[in-house]
């Protein structure tokens, strides 16, 4: 059963009671809250995600509650608990939906050590995966969202999960988080894209989540083999450039973006080195989103023609 098949009333009852449990790729989460905005946001953004049957094990338990104590806050606040322990500072209730996404990201990085977790967007086309490793602010989420609307399947916008044994990238197929001017840039690029209501005044500015296409969510259990590693850097006024990156420098940057490499040790390093050896590694500098998408499409078509 999918989350969206529950009516809002039934959804709210689960959230207020035993918890709402759903799965994104290899991770399942149970959430409890009485916040209507979260209920409505989940019903919208995660409508196509499978529910986890009641009582089944979940990887994490999240609770969002408004604190009882008068903390002197000027706005209504919400406190998150993970596995019944408080986590993060309270945030305004208006930021509760982005908070859910931050918590899901935190959960992946804190507990997902059965994968190599790379701070990268990941997409797939014709069975071949593209990784976009980059620090925050490089434009990877915006580029990822754009590629999703140009024939690429969304695997993840924030963390690429690489299987230690196989080297395959496993999807999360979660909403793509965009911020500030990227929201309008993407709306203009892909008018068909569907967004949550924006949350203003977060530490990252204005945030909105772009719903993952239903067809991509349905394929969340289909990993893909990485073929391209592209390091994107958006820069205003930059001339479009897509050029080969030396393998050693690609590996160096990939290790910097791997959040659990210290835990993975030599095995993790060896797996990343194999990934770099087997993939085409490139740097991408761009200003206009359409140019970047066209360059990546051309890159993918070149390998298609090469067979």
């Amino acid at each position, binding site marked *: 059963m999918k989350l969206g098949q529950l009516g809002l009333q039934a959804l709210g009852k689960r959230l207020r009671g035993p918890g709402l449990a759903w799965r994104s790729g290899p991770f399942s989460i149970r959430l409890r809250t009485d916040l209507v905005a979260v209920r409505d946001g989940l019903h919208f953004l995660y409508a196509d995600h499978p529910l986890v049957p009641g009582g089944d094990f979940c990887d994490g338990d999240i609770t969002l509650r408004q604190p009882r104590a008068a903390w002197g806050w000027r706005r209504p606040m919400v406190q998150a608990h993970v596995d019944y322990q408080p986590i993060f500072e309270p945030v305004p209730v208006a930021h509760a939906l982005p908070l859910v996404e931050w918590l899901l990201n935190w959960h992946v990085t804190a507990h997902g050590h059965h994968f190599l977790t790379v701070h990268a967007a990941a997409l797939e086309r014709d069975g071949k995966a593209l990784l976009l490793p980059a620090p925050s602010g490089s434009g990877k989420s915006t580029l990822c969202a754009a590629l999703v609307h140009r024939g690429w399947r969304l695997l993840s916008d924030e963390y690429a999960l690489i299987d230690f044994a196989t080297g395959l990238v496993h999807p999360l197929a979660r909403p793509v988080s965009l911020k500030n001017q990227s929201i309008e840039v993407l709306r203009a690029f892909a008018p068909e894209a569907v967004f949550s209501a924006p949350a203003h005044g977060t530490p990252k500015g204005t945030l909105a989540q772009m719903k993952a296409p239903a067809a991509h969510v349905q394929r969340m259990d289909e990993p893909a083999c990485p073929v391209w590693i592209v390091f994107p850097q958006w820069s205003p006024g930059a001339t479009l450039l897509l050029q080969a990156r*030396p393998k050693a*420098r690609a590996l*160096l940057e990939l290790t910097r973006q791997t959040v659990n490499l210290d835990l993975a040790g*030599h095995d993790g*390093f060896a797996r990343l*080195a194999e990934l770099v050896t087997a993939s085409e590694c490139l740097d991408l500098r761009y200003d206009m989103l359409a140019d970047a998408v066209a360059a990546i499409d051309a890159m993918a078509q070149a390998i298609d023609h090469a067979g």
Partner: protein
Amino acid sequence: MLFSLNPQIDLIWRDWGDESVAMEAASGRVFLFDPLSSALLACFESGPQQVQAAVDSLLADLGSPTDSRLQEFLRAALDRFVALGWLLPGDA
């Protein structure tokens, strides 16, 4: 002066032609090295070495035994390895 590889350092290397990447297991830190620096460290894998002997041997292999710039470069690389704790003075 005699230097040795720190026995507590556990390195894994990957080489691509003109550059190498090494990960130090305990810290999880990853480093990029040029071929000369990698070759200099490799001199110490067989056992403790006198610094100048290692440098001279490498320069001889390169066919540039008296190149002062290369000498300086290798000395700087050595200082880097010592600062990282990968090379220790004496017979470790």
